[in-house]
């Protein structure tokens, strides 16, 4: 049974290829059946596999074929299956299935229905390969594969150049990280002689000591890939723009699965990171910094999807924080719960956008509570989970992360405090969204409510967001046990109460209006800060000037081909010589004779100079 694991990525892949070859000639129903059915069957297979694994938790290593073999370099097309893989696969196929189902309604009017599902299925296949790969090269294949699918889906509505711009940005920015990761792969293979993750970690533990330079470099390079894919500082700028794609795509790729690939990568190679404490520290700091910056930015946005995008960046920052402090299980747990509630929020926003004529601005919405009840409750639950209100899934995972961060040596309490600030902000921006969109005056009337294909995924995800916190993820055999003692009770109480304070603040500011912040907002500093946060801390602005424009300028400078100009000099010289020599061809006999005599004079002189004895 378990040997059939290769079917799980293959089914969506085949479906994708079939849809591509169909050239859009299939009826819509068939396209939908293929697209959703393939992921659904993959989800069922994963479920069966998961049950089997629960009963008999044994790691599976399956090599299909040797990808390429050159000397000792022999990465296989091989799968590795353990608890971590199972969690990831469940999230991908499960949430993936729900989002596919949602898409059939969301995209029902689109002309490129088949293309959409082809890409989406391809993405699922690539993502599955990514998490199932037993070596880093195959992982890299999935890694790039999801990147390409993300590119294709962000730029899905290609007629609009802005979408193309966003898609390119997404691909190129992540590619920068990917290149670092590729270098990391090269380093790891050169030093350890294998890319198979398990044996590589084993070899690393044998040949490297904790704190060596080489594992640090390798980890930082891998981290480069991870921050690119997971939209962390300094490569996070692509994610808000990537919202140009269809909303279900944002839910699947840019919230639930692909962006967490970086977290998965670090978790998967945690054996290496344990050898490089400095790298772990960098991971933690990147995580918490990103988390705060993104949370501030989310508070200022008015585009519903951009709020969620910055929120995603912020939440992945928490996961990085978890990884950095060695709370592997908590990190992966948060990955899973985040997949549930963020997919829920994105699908909810998708429903709103779908029913509101593609309106994105939250200040043009309002009072949707009674018009779209399913969506309203989805948002309520999703936001509660996102804000980590007690008893929701987000509460369990985030609380665990904060507690473990507190126990981190030296700077632990600082990390914890920063995490708390983030949590406060998270609660504020998520409920700001809820209050602005669902309460108050009706500003735009929805022309329809959600159909069952939208409502069903929303409901399921609501349930998961609520109870997901009680799941026990089977990763205890994958990660080392955390050894920390339980911190003081006040720490826990503070952690629990901060989101509630955030909720209260949001209520006072955005709903009841009892807390007036106009004065603060409209003051000179307030305006500047507002603008600064709105633009995402000016990082895009900075990159535009630091990298993009110089590159354009450089390219247009080089366009004239300076090298060719050098060869042009040869041509110019020859032409000049030609002109000069043909001028000497006057046709006048006296000139020729004189030239001959001059030549003769020179020749005789040279001959005399060279061999005076010959005379």
């Amino acid at each position, binding site marked *: 049974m378990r040997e059939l694991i290769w079917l799980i990525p293959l089914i969506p892949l085949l479906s994708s290829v079939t849809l591509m070859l169909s050239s859009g000639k299939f009826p819509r129903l068939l396209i939908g059946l293929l697209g959703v059915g393939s992921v659904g069957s993959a989800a069922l297979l994963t479920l069966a596999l998961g049950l089997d694994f629960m009963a008999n938790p044994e790691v599976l290593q399956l090599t299909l074929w040797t990808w390429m073999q050159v000397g000792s370099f022999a990465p296989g097309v091989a799968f590795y299956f353990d608890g971590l893989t199972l969690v990831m696969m469940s999230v991908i196929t499960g949430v993936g299935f729900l989002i596919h189902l949602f898409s059939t309604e969301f995209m029902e009017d689109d002309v490129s229905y088949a293309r959409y599902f082809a890409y989406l299925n391809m993405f699922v296949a690539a993502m599955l390969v990514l998490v199932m790969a037993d070596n880093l090269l195959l992982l890299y294949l999935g890694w790039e594969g999801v990147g390409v699918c993300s590119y294709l889906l962000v730029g899905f509505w290609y007629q609009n150049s802005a979408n193309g711009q966003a898609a390119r940005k997404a691909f190129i920015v992540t590619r920068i990280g990917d290149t670092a990761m590729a270098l990391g792969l090269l380093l790891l293979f050169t030093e350890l002689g294998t890319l198979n993750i398990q044996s590589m970690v084993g070899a690393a533990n044998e040949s490297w000591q904790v704190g060596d330079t080489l594992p640090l470099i390798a980890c930082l390079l891998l981290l480069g890939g991870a921050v690119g894919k997971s939209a962390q500082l300094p490569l996070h700028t692509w994610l808000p723009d990537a919202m140009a794609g269809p909303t279900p795509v944002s839910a699947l790729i840019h919230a639930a699965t692909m962006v967490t690939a970086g977290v998965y990568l670090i978790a998967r190679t945690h054996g290496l990171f344990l050898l490089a404490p400095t790298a772990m520290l960098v991971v933690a700091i990147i995580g918490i910094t990103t988390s705060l910056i993104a949370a501030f930015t989310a508070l200022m946005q008015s585009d519903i999807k951009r709020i969620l995008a910055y929120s995603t960046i912020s939440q992945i920052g928490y996961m990085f924080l978890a990884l950095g402090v060695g709370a592997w299980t908590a990190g992966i747990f948060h990955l899973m719960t985040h997949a549930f509630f963020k997919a829920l929020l994105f699908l909810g926003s998708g429903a709103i956008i779908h029913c509101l004529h593609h309106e994105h601005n939250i200040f043009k919405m309002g009072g949707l509570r009674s018009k779209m009840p399913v969506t309203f409750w989805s948002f309520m639950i999703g936001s509660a989970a996102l804000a980590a209100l007690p008893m929701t899934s987000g509460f369990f995972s985030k609380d665990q992360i904060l507690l473990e961060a507190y126990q981190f040596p030296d700077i632990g309490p600082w990390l914890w405090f920063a995490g708390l600030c983030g949590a406060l902000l998270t609660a504020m921006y998520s409920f700001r969204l809820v209050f602005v969109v669902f309460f108050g005056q009706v500003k735009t009337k929805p022309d329809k409510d959600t159909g069952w294909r939208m409502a069903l995924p929303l409901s399921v995800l609501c349930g998961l967001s609520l109870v997901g916190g009680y799941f026990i993820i089977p990763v205890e055999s994958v990660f080392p046990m955390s050894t920390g003692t339980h911190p003081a009770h006040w720490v826990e109480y503070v952690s629990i109460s901060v989101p509630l304070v955030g909720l209260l603040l949001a209520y006072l500011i955005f709903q009841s209006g009892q807390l007036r912040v106009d004065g603060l907002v409209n003051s000179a500093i307030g305006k500047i800060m507002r603008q600064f946060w709105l633009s995402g801390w000016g990082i895009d602005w900075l990159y535009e000037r630091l990298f993009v424009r110089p590159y354009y300028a450089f390219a247009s400078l080089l366009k004239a081909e300076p090298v060719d100009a050098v060869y042009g000099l040869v041509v110019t010289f020859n032409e000049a010589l030609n002109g000069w020599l043909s001028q000497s061809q006057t046709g006048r006999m006296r000139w020729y004779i*004189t030239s001959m*005599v*001059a030549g*003769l*004079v020179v020749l*005789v*002189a040279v001959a*005399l100079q060279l061999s005076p004895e010959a*005379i």
Partner: protein
Amino acid sequence: MLEITLFYTAATVALIATVMAMTRANAIHALIYLIVSLLAIAVIFFLIGAPFAAALEIVIYAGAIMVLFVFVIMMLNLGDKGDRQEREWLQLKVWAGPAVLAIVLFIELLYVISTAEGPVSTTSVSAKEVGLSLFGPYVLAVEIASMLLLAGLVGSFHLGRRYLERDSFDVENSAARREAE
């Protein structure tokens, strides 16, 4: 002693006559100076023991070849206009460059011949000896020379014939031009 005096005299005459020949505006005058120069060289030949060469110089060079020139100049009938034209052409700026080159070349030649030591032999080489070597080791050269002369004969005949048939040529030309029109 007499020979040496004669040699220098003849040499001076040859040089002066040549310079004059080169600088005349009138072709006939130049030609006559040239003939004088050739005769002076014939004297030198005689003095350095080549009487046969001296005779040939006078008979063929000064006699036959120069006469050709005379005939052609007469046929061309240049007249005063030609003289004036020649004087205009002989400007100093025309002279300067070539003169420098010529002087440099001369200095080089001087340097080369300065190493040639020794006198010219007094015994003259007779026509018989010349004849023997002409038809002995040099017979091939003689054959080639004859071929050359033949070619010169044919060539000059060909060129000259067209000149004499000038009128008919022009008629043909104009006829062709009319047709083209």
